[in-house]
């Protein structure tokens, strides 16, 4: 089988552009990246399908028909990409509603762990956290002997 050069190159270029956009923080760019990358992969499926041929209908000469299986797979993939795009659009809109932009923020707990590491503190799980208002109270220093 000789693959079609143009399809292969176009598929590669689309995928590369898609991956570049997927690395962005904005959800809209990620959406664009996803669509480009998945279309690139769909083109590669056409490469995998081999040369063009007659419509694959039962009764046609099996030697002359196009391979229907990759096309069925591409169809499934297109539907899945459609659903994923709708989901990403909704996420992007929701993010815009909540924060006024659709950039993905850093993880909060990650940031805490990182700040503690930079300040050379040990992890939260190991520090003896005394309750802020270490009180003097009537129950007589239960804070001390509980451990």
């Amino acid at each position, binding site marked *: 089988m000789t693959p079609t050069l143009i399809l292969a190159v176009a598929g590669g270029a689309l995928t590369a552009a898609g991956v570049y956009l997927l690395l962005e923080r904005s959800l809209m760019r990620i959406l664009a990246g996803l669509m480009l990358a998945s279309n690139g992969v769909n083109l590669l499926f056409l490469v995998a399908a081999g040369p063009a041929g007659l419509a694959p209908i039962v009764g046609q000469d099996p030697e002359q028909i196009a391979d229907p299986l990759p096309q069925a797979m591409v169809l499934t993939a297109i539907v899945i990409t459609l659903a994923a795009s709708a*989901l990403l659009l909704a996420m992007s809109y929701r993010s815009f509603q909540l924060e006024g932009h659709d950039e993905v923020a850093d993880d909060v707990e990650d940031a805490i762990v990182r700040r503690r590491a930079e300040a050379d503190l040990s992890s939260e*799980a190991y520090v003896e956290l005394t*309750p802020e208002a270490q009180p003097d109270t009537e129950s007589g220093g239960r804070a001390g002997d509980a451990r």
Partner: protein
Amino acid sequence: MDLANLVPIPVLLPLLAAGITLTLARRPALQRIVSGTTLGLVAVLALILCLGADAQGPIVLWVGAWPEGLGIVLVADRLSSLLVLVSSIVTAIVVIFPSRRDIADSADGAPVSVFHPTFLVLTAGVSHAFLAGDLFNLFVGFEMLLFSSYVLIMLGATKERVRAGSTYVTVSLLSSTLFLLAIAIVYAATGTVSFAQLPERLAALDPGLQLVIQLLLLVVFGIKAAIFPLQSWLPDSYPTAPASVTAVFAGLLTKVGVFAIIRLQTLLFPHSPLTELLLAVAILTLVLGILGALAQGEIKRLLSFTLVSHIGYMLLGVALGTEAGLAGAIFYIVHHILVQTALFIVVGLIERVGGSTSLARLGGLASVPLLAALYLIPALNLGGIPPFSGFLGKVALMDAALEVPTPLAVAAVVAGVATSLLTLLAVVRVWQRAFWQDRGEDDDRVHSLRVLPRVWVFASTALVLITVSLTALAGPLTDYAQRASVDIRGGAYQLAVEEATP
């Protein structure tokens, strides 16, 4: 072959029930009954499949019986039917937990009614991925479970959940695109995607191309299974979801990735085990995962890191490429699905009783003895304390690794033992802080299980008891895992599929 007609039921029944629960959107109590009974039924069917596959070898169904193997094939061999069984037990118990408050506690007007339909589609997807007989249907199963997981992880769409969901969705979409790319390459190179035909045709390819395909699929499944260095999405995205959702994700979704790696390594590339590479990755996953866990101050994140770390054990078993290693990995998968789910569910209870999952804010929970027992038992089990199944699974894996006389295998044993000890340190730290730490005097809340619906306490106790009963069932289960791994490596799969071709 009547049993063959049972094979698609674990996929069809939850899908049907998903439709029914969607029409019952305004009646949450009925929804819960429908999904509970459906998943219970699936568990019974899966048990029948399990016993059937054990007695007569892989059960194969060509859906629609199209001539010459044109249709979709579903295969329930020992491994996949066992995993369907375990996953349906877990989901049937967990589906009891979500209540309006649990799911919507941080978002007003969250669409709780979509929980049950989505959850059922998720279980259908998991079953489909386990039963799929070709690469493309494995992809479809993955997509089914991923799309429902996108909805579940962002349930209520609060700020935190959308942020966590963004990471999860982006990484998953990337891995799906890579998976499609791999399928296109496989099809272009071999002209088939069927698991039964691929081994022969892949073996005839150029070795370089074989390696490309194997590594590409390994990356795809590695992202799903969260193995190092593809694991960093997991601890960032799982902890923000509702407790019951996190429990199922942690228990099941990563194991689907491990299952796919087993299929890849044993069925598609039996002669290219990549032992060194996988062992090195397994060691790094074990050690870095658990070191991450030790740095966390939040219980759900801590458990997410132990989850990543323990994926390393399963990978270790697969990497060895021996029957003993594979059997150990299968046993460990079963153990880990149950224990990790139980732990996350109990953390959900801790969150409700103590009002937080942050170690700095929790304390004094030991005044609720039942909750303490519910936490301590699966926690010790995870850490690998002797009578429990975690110990047995780890011993089986270490044993298998010691039979392989390479320095890397010995290093893996060392890493495994160290990880086991460090896991114990991490979970005992939670025990000490959340249950025995003094809360200070200004806090006069009285902890009590009364804030929980009674059915939750029953269900989580049942789940913990199942994890304990694995100790008693370990003998038969190990034998079963042994037979399953002999099965997998003996080519029974291909034979059964070819025999059943209409």
